[in-house]
C-alpha cells in the first residue's frame, strides 16, 4: 500500500465515525434533555469530517479562504440575529446549503461526467440544489415581509409557469444523451431555468402555509447533499444528507397533518380554490370587552389557557404575555399555554418565541393535551391566533378548514380573543368563535392590551 492509499483509508474511517456521530447527534436533538449535546455532537462530526477532507485539499488559498470568510459571515449573522427573525434566518442558511450543492454539481459537469449515471446525478443535483436555493430566498423574503407579491398577480403566474417549464426542461436534459445533437448550450439554460423555477415553486404559497414549505425545503437541501455524495462517491455526504432529508420530511408531514391537508394541496392548490359553500353568513353580534373588565374576570379565574398565534409574533407581545402569566400564577391561577403545531410561520415558531421570553417549556401543551380538559378552563386567552381556534373545523362540514385539528377554545367557560380588527385569518374563512355567547373580543394591539392587563394586576 502506498502512503496515499493509507491516507484514503484513514479518511474513510473518519468519515464513518463522523456518520455515526451525526446519527447520534440528530437523535439527541429530538429530545429536550439532550438537544444541546446533540447539536454539539453533530458540530463535532462536521469538524472531523472537514478536517479529514482538508488533507487532500488542492488549493488551500482559495478553499481555506472560503471557509474562513464563510465562518465570519455565518457566525456574525447567527450571533446578531434577533430571535424573532429565526424563521427567515433558517430559510436563508438552508438556501445557502442548496446553493453549495448546486455549485458542486455544476463543477462536476464541467469536469465531464464519466458515465451516464454520473450525468443523471449531475442533472438531478443541479435541479434540487438550485430550487432549494432560490425557493429558500423567496421564503426568506416572505418570512421577513420584504417580499409582498399576491398569489393572483401576473408576476406570480409567470414564475409558476416557469416552474412547470423547468421540470419539463430537467426531463429533457436527462434524456438529452439519447437524442440527436442539438445546436445550443442546453446546460446554461438548465442552470438558469432551475433558479427561476425555484422562485416559481415558492412564490404562490401563502404565509400561513410557510411551515410546510420551509420544512420541505429543509428536506430538499438534505436530499441534494445526499445526491452530491453519490456523485462524489462520498459516504459521509450521503449519510448526513439523508438524515436531513428524513427529518425535513417528517416535519413536513407533521405540519400537513396539523392542517388536515395533503402536501399536494398546500403546494399546488392553496386555500383559494378550496370549496366555498360555507354557511358562515349568519354571524350575529360580537361582544367586546375592555381591559378593566377582562382583568376582573382573569383575577377570579382559577385556570387560564393562553393560545398564541402569529399575531403575538407580529405584535412582539411574548414578553408581556410571560409577565401576565407569572402575575396570574402569583394570584393562584393555573396557567398553561396551548400551542398549535402550525401557529406562526415555521414549525415550533411559538415555542421559540415563548422560550425567548423565558416561559418554561413544560407549561406548553399540545392540542391533544388541552382539548380533553377544555371545559374545566375558566378563561382561554387567544392572542393573535385565528384559524387554529376556528370551531368551523369541527362543526361545519362545508368549511374549507373542516377536519383540521384545532384547539377547541369554544368549549372553555370564557374566551377572550385579542385581535386588531374583525378581518378573517390567513385562510380567509370567517370565524364563528367571535360570535359565540362565551366569547369576548378585546380589540387593539396585543402588546398594549396585555400590557394593560399587567398594569391592572400590579395596581
Amino acid at each position, binding site marked *: 500500500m502506498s502512503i496515499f492509499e493509507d491516507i484514503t483509508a484513514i479518511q474513510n474511517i473518519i468519515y464513518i465515525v463522523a456518520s455515526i456521530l451525526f446519527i447520534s447527534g*440528530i437523535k439527541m*436533538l*429530538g*429530545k*429536550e434533555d439532550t438537544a*444541546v449535546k446533540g*447539536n454539539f455532537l453533530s*458540530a463535532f462530526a*462536521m469538524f472531523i469530517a472537514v478536517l479529514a*477532507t*482538508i488533507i*487532500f485539499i*488542492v*488549493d488551500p488559498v*482559495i*478553499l481555506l*479562504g*472560503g471557509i474562513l*470568510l*464563510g*465562518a465570519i*459571515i*455565518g*457566525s456574525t*449573522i*447567527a450571533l446578531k440575529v434577533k430571535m424573532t427573525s429565526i424563521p427567515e434566518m433558517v430559510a436563508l*442558511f438552508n438556501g445557502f*446549503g442548496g*446553493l*453549495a450543492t448546486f*455549485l*458542486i454539481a455544476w*463543477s462536476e459537469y*464541467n469536469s465531464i461526467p464519466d458515465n451516464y449515471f454520473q450525468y443523471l446525478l449531475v442533472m438531478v443535483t443541479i435541479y434540487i440544489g438550485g430550487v432549494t436555493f432560490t425557493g429558500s430566498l423567496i421564503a426568506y423574503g416572505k418570512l421577513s415581509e420584504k417580499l409582498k407579491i399576491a398569489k393572483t398577480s401576473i408576476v406570480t403566474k409567470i414564475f409558476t409557469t416557469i416552474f412547470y417549464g423547468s421540470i419539463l426542461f430537467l426531463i429533457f436534459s436527462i434524456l438529452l444523451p439519447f437524442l440527436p445533437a442539438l445546436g445550443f448550450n442546453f446546460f446554461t439554460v438548465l442552470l438558469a431555468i432551475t433558479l427561476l423555477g425555484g422562485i416559481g415553486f415558492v412564490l404562490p404559497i401563502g404565509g400561513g402555509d410557510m411551515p410546510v414549505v420551509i420544512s420541505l425545503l*429543509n428536506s430538499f437541501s*438534505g436530499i441534494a447533499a*445526499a445526491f452530491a455524495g*453519490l456523485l462524489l*462517491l462520498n459516504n*459521509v*455526504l*450521503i449519510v*448526513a444528507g*439523508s*438524515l436531513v*432529508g*428524513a*427529518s425535513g420530511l*417528517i*416535519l413536513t408531514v407533521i405540519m400537513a397533518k396539523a392542517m388536515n391537508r395533503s402536501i399536494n394541496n398546500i403546494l399546488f392548490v392553496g386555500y383559494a380554490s378550496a370549496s366555498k359553500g360555507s354557511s358562515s353568513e349568519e354571524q350575529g353580534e360580537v361582544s367586546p370587552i375592555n381591559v378593566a373588565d377582562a382583568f376582573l374576570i382573569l383575577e377570579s379565574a382559577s385556570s387560564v389557557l393562553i393560545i398564541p398565534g402569529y399575531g403575538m409574533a407580529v405584535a412582539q407581545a411574548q414578553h408581556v404575555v410571560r409577565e401576565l402569566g407569572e402575575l396570574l400564577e402569583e394570584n393562584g391561577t393555573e396557567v398553561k399555554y396551548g400551542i398549535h*403545531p402550525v401557529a406562526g410561520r415555521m414549525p*415550533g415558531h411559538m*415555542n*421559540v418565541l415563548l*422560550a425567548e421570553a*423565558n416561559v418554561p*417549556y*413544560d*407549561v*406548553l401543551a399540545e392540542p391533544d393535551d388541552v382539548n380533553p380538559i377544555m371545559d374545566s378552563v375558566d378563561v382561554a386567552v387567544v392572542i393573535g391566533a385565528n384559524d387554529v381556534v376556528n370551531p368551523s373545523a369541527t362543526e361545519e362540514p362545508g368549511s374549507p378548514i373542516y377536519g383540521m385539528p384545532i384547539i377547541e377554545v369554544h368549549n372553555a367557560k370564557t374566551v377572550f380573543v385579542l385581535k386588531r380588527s374583525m378581518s378573517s385569518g390567513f385562510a380567509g374563512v370567517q370565524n364563528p368563535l367571535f360570535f359565540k355567547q362565551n366569547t369576548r373580543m378585546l380589540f387593539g394591539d396585543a402588546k398594549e392590551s396585555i400590557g394593560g392587563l399587567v398594569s391592572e394586576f400590579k395596581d
Partner: protein
Amino acid sequence: MEIYALLGFVLILSIYLGLELISKVPSTLHTPLMSGANAISGIALVGALVLSTDSNLQSAIAFLAVLFASINVFGGYLVTNRMLKMFKKK
C-alpha cells in the same frame, strides 16, 4: 456501477434510519431540529472542498461552494445552539 448500487443502499438505509430516529419529536423542538438539521446539510462543505480548481471558472465555483456551505455550517450550528439555550424547564 457496483459502487453506485452500494452507495444507493447506504442512502436508502440512512433515510430509513432518519425516519425512525426522528419520528417522535416534541413540538417544542421542531424549530431547533429543523435548524440543527439545516446545519448538518452544510456537509456539502466536504464535497465543495474536493472540487477541481483547474480553470478560473472552476476555481470561482469551488470558492463560492465552500463559502456558502461554510456560512450554512457556522450559521446553522450557532443559531441552533442559541435557540436551545433558551429552552428551560420550570
